[in-house]
């Protein structure tokens, strides 16, 4: 199994280590519930160094990315990022990712840990067939770069002190907290530089920091000690999963795969059908016009029950009740104290309020299709 540059830190903090996408990662340090609630109420620090990074640069980079990714990269000013997807010709999702425009002709792609090899192979294949391939440089920087996410409402109280001074790349800001949602900037740090974006996978305000692997431990330690007086806890993949499930962010391998389209997954907003030709466009355009045959819904258990889990059958209710789908992600919601999840069902069952049942160990328990996100921040 692969280890991130923060492996020794996780051991020292008593992290409970599990295998995830070929990596040995902390699932929790003390308690998934406590770590989850720390992120909702204060701050949590996550190692996300297992995520992959690809750099795409050159005069042809924008055109190359725009025919390979579903969102429109031309909308990105320098120092901005967007959520996007990479599809095959059938409109199936090869990966979902964030693309940042670091400089006029330089883009950073943050890709899923489990998809690094598949993504890089796909990008290389597409690049070889790209007419202007001599004007594009593709570099897999996944091994050289580490990353951490620091998430939660109180992060703004201490992050400026961790990376002092104004930015020296990307969006021009005087301090980290001047970054707006989806903006990215570089800051001098430890004789090197780090890229900080105002993004995350938790539904909370927060930042993600990408840095060379050899300084990521210094980055972690800086955030960890600065956050101590602001309620920060180290948080593992367990909390990362419950946090993203509550706010209905898809996870590759659960909600997304090569046989599922962004339209079916409910992320059609990130498919720019009007930008011109791109891989998967014709299938996605047709599906958007005619409607997909399955839709990803969020649901909440109606009563107290065992938590729903991936692959549990979803049933319709009443006379003629039948199996209509399968749970993609499911868990006990630490914020709501009930079982929640997402799953694919035929569109006629996708309306909010539709009663459904989740089969848990042979018994069906009542649930209801819920609006996304399942968890909303209290006003």
């Amino acid at each position, binding site marked *: 199994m692969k280890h991130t540059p923060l492996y020794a830190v996780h051991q020292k903090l008593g992290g409970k280590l599990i295998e995830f996408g070929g990596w040995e990662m902390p*699932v929790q340090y003390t308690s998934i519930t406590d770590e989850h609630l720390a992120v909702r109420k204060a701050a949590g620090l996550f190692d996300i160094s297992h995520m992959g990074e690809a750099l795409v640069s050159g005069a042809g980079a924008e055109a190359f990315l725009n025919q390979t990714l579903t969102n429109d990269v031309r909308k990105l000013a320098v120092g901005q990022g967007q959520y996007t997807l990479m599809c095959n010709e059938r409109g199936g999702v090869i990966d979902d990712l964030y693309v940042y425009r670091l400089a006029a002709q330089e883009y950073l792609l943050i890709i899923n840990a489990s998809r690094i090899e598949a993504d890089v192979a796909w990008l290389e294949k597409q690049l070889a067939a790209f007419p202007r391939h001599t004007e594009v440089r593709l570099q897999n920087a996944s091994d050289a770069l580490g990353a951490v996410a620091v998430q939660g409402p109180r992060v703004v109280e201490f992050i400026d002190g961790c990376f002092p001074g104004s930015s020296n790349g990307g969006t021009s800001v005087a301090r980290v907290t001047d970054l707006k949602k989806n903006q990215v900037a570089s800051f001098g740090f430890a004789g090197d530089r780090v890229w900080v974006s105002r993004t995350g996978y938790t539904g909370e305000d927060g930042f993600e920091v990408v840095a060379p692997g050899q300084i990521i431990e210094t980055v972690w330690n800086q955030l960890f000690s600065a956050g101590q007086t602001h309620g920060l806890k180290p948080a593992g993949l367990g909390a990362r999963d419950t946090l993203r499930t509550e706010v209905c962010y898809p996870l590759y391998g659960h909600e997304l795969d090569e046989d599922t389209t962004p339209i079916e997954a409910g992320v059609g907003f990130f498919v720019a059908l009007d930008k011109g030709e791109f891989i998967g466009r014709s299938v996605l355009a047709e599906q958007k016009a005619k409607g997909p045959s399955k839709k990803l819904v969020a649901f909440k258990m109606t009563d107290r029950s*065992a938590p729903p889990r991936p692959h549990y059958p979803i049933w319709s209710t009443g006379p003629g009740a039948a199996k209509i789908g399968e749970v993609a992600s499911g868990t006990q919601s630490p914020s709501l104290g009930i079982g929640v999840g997402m799953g694919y069902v035929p569109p006629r069952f996708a309306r909010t309020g539709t009663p459904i049942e989740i089969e848990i160990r042979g018994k069906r328990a009542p649930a209801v299709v819920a609006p996304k996100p399942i968890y909303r921040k209290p006003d």
Partner: protein
Amino acid sequence: MANVPTDLKYAKSHEWVRVAGDVATVGITDHAQHELTDLVFVEVPEVGRTIKAGDVCAVVESVKTASDIYSPVSGVVTAANTLVVADPALVNSDPYTAGWFYKIKLSNPAELNALLSAEQYKAQIGGA
């Protein structure tokens, strides 16, 4: 370090048994609750159910996983702890008293001899 009371018997699969006459109380160990992490759901057997040693008799679920609990002994269930069903966190906070699962009238008390002592169980979980 996990708490392993000396007055209990233990199963290799991390259940404890407290015997009083011909009735045994069954729960899961401190080590088990720690490994399972925060429990969010507990299912206990119905009163009156006949159970054989080794049967799945209860289910516990954490945020992350579901785990079966196996009965260390055979008999008929005489009581089930509805408090842990209502508040699964009791199993984490108090595994040996408030966090018990069920009481069972032993049909084969000789099975108790096959269970582990506190010392043996401690050795198994690596905490001598």
